């Protein structure tokens, strides 16, 4: 069975199943969502209007037994940045889509009726049902309601109240194998789903069919080499599994690049208390799980079960970025409070980078004292979840909050909040923040690996030399990894172990009967970046949007007392390809 495109029109509540156009056939994951958005969405449209479309796509290797191939890519025009957006997450949805032979699900239009809908994706097609009972419900209640009705082994994609209220920081949740949540966090895609009154998408399990593999023997051999690379490399095989993604908190702090107190310092006094090492000790002591897979076939297992003081499950998928944002950036040094906020943000459906960074900006404006963890929890419960005017303001993201409070230290690019690496002290990631068509996004080209962690070589984080080229190479590689539907963490072994990178190319070739080379895969990544940038330029952005905020060139970041010192011309050279 050839893969198909499923299209749902929310204006008239109809759906179609279409053959894959030739121009889309070689794409998957991010390459496909961005190609479809660029082809079908008017770049100047209102992101919450009927002309925007939201596209869900599994990667090219999804549904196969390739390790770590279960990422779901979601694309649309972003209400946060005003540009193209792709955000991805683990969970079970991508593999279920792939097994149903669905290359992409496009949701378009906008219903007349003010009621929420669930899109039910099944083997024989799609039906759309009204779910008024889920109005205002959190993601956990929503997932539980779908599981109760359609069985536990149903994949669920959903939005919480933040998405229903169309907050620009609203995310999209994807159920993991245990009914917990992974998030396509960035850029307000939850608001786009909410604008179409789609509360959730339920995808039927189809264990009877498997994805077709052109050359099963070659695929098996390559998949084995690939998995071995993931297990052998110390980052993916050891550090992430033991300490989770927060393993990098201490190294960022020691290197002076951990943004602290709304990006006014590069080291946080309370770093140790929110580090991956501390989290490991707490989880062990309380009987949680230090490693856990967010989708079937994940061998890295960076997720965990974090228990509260009473040894009851509190949260999972407890990430470095979240811990840093509410931790160092808001100066909260209490991991239990951050874990509770993580659970609340999952349930409300709000980006756990954008929201706490917005709170950091508001703290600068005097909303709360620095370090007021209980105050942040109260804001989530009483303001964001309930949609008070203050909650809606904070849910609009860091840039809007900065304007509302008259703050100049607002760490955003293209209106998207910067993640957990200060670009003054990690200059390579600064080039990624500046140039990525996604806005400030560490995952778009993780130059921190080579700047700080000596992975994929090493480049001095405090110098400009080599950073533009590094970011370009990593952004192209990332676009390709996102298209394969692989977890980005496969990049750590792939950068250091040539056979591991080669195995990705071999798996793509064996799956589809192709003869791609490593260069072809790099070229695919570059072409995706161009497609995405083309959309942004047509939407009205210019090269002047590829800039970091002014304060970074004027306020020295301690302890190294460094400034952001790239000229506009040097940044623009990124696009010389």
């Amino acid at each position, binding site marked *: 069975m050839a893969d198909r495109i499923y299209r749902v029109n929310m204006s008239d509540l109809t759906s179609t199943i279409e053959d894959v156009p030739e121009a889309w056939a070689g794409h998957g994951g991010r390459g496909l969502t961005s190609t479809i958005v660029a082809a079908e969405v008017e770049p100047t449209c209102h992101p919450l209007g009927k002309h925007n479309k939201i596209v869900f796509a599994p990667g090219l290797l999804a549904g196969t037994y390739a390790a770590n191939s279960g990422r779901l890519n979601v694309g649309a025009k972003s209400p946060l940045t005003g540009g193209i957006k792709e955000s991805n997450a683990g969970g079970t949805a991508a593999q279920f889509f792939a097994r149903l032979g669905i290359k992409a699900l496009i949701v378009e239009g906008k219903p007349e009726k003010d009621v929420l809908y669930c899109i039910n994706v099944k083997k024989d097609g799609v039906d759309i049902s009204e779910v008024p009972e889920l109005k205002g419900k959190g993601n956990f209640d929503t997932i539980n309601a779908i599981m109760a009705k359609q069985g536990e082994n149903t994949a669920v994609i959903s939005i919480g109240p933040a998405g229903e209220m169309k907050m620009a920081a609203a995310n999209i949740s994807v159920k993991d194998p245990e009914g917990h949540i992974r998030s396509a966090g960035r850029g307000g895609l939850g608001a786009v789903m909410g604008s179409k009154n789609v509360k959730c998408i339920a995808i039927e399990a189809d264990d009877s069919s498997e994805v077709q593999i052109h050359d099963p023997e070659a695929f098996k051999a390559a998949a084995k080499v690939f998995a071995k690379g993931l297990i052998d490399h110390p980052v993916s095989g050891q550090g*992430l599994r033991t300490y989770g993604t927060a393993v990098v908190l201490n190294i960022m702090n020691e290197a002076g690049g951990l943004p602290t107190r709304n990006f006014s310092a590069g080291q946080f006094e309370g770093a140790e208390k929110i580090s991956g090492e501390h989290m490991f000790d707490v989880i062990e002591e309380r009987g949680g799980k230090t490693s856990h897979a967010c989708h079937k076939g994940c061998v890295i297992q960076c997720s965990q079960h974090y228990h509260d003081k009473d040894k009851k499950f509190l949260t999972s998928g407890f990430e470095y970025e979240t811990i840093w944002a509410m931790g160092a950036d808001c100066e909260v040094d209490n991991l239990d409070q951050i874990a509770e906020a993580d659970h609340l943000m999952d349930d409300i459906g709000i980006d756990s980078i954008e929201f706490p960074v917005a709170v950091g900006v508001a703290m600068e404006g005097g909303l709360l004292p620095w370090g007021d963890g209980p105050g942040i929890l109260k804001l989530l419960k009483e303001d964001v979840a309930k949609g008070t005017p203050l909650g809606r303001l904070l849910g609009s993201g860091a840039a809007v909050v900065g304007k509302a409070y008259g703050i100049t230290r607002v760490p955003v690019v293209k209106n998207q909040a910067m993640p957990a690496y200060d670009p003054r002290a990690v200059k390579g990631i600064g080039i990624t923040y500046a140039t990525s068509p996604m806005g400030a996004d560490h995952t778009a080209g993780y130059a921190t690996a080579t700047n700080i962690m000596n992975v994929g070589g090493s480049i001095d984080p405090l110098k400009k030399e080599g950073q533009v080229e590094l970011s370009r190479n990593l952004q192209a590689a990332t676009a390709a990894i996102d298209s394969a539907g692989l977890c980005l963490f496969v990049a750590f072994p792939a950068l250091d172990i040539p056979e591991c990178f080669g195995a990705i190319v071999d798996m793509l070739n064996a799956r589809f009967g192709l003869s791609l080379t490593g260069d072809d895969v790099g070229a695919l990544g570059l072409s995706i970046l161009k497609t995405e940038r083309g959309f942004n330029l047509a939407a009205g952005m210019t090269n002047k949007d590829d800039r970091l905020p002014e304060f970074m060139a004027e306020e020295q970041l301690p302890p190294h007392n460094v400034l952001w010192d790239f000229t506009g011309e040097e940044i623009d050279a990124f696009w010389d390809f």
Partner: protein
Amino acid sequence: MQVAVKLFAHFRNNRFKKEVRTIAPGVTVGAIVTELSIAEEEVGVVLINGRHGSLDQALAEGDILSLFPLVGGG
């Protein structure tokens, strides 16, 4: 002279988080790593006062040496 040594991730197991050590002038990072029974090839990142350093670098009075295995994530 005195230097502070900080260990991270599994380097802490059966060792310490932070220790002030008295060393002779000219002692290198590599010598300290050996003294701690850490295999040199296991060392992913050396930071001296927050700047990247190397195993053959000699330490100076008051230096803070941070040792990491290869780590990544985020």
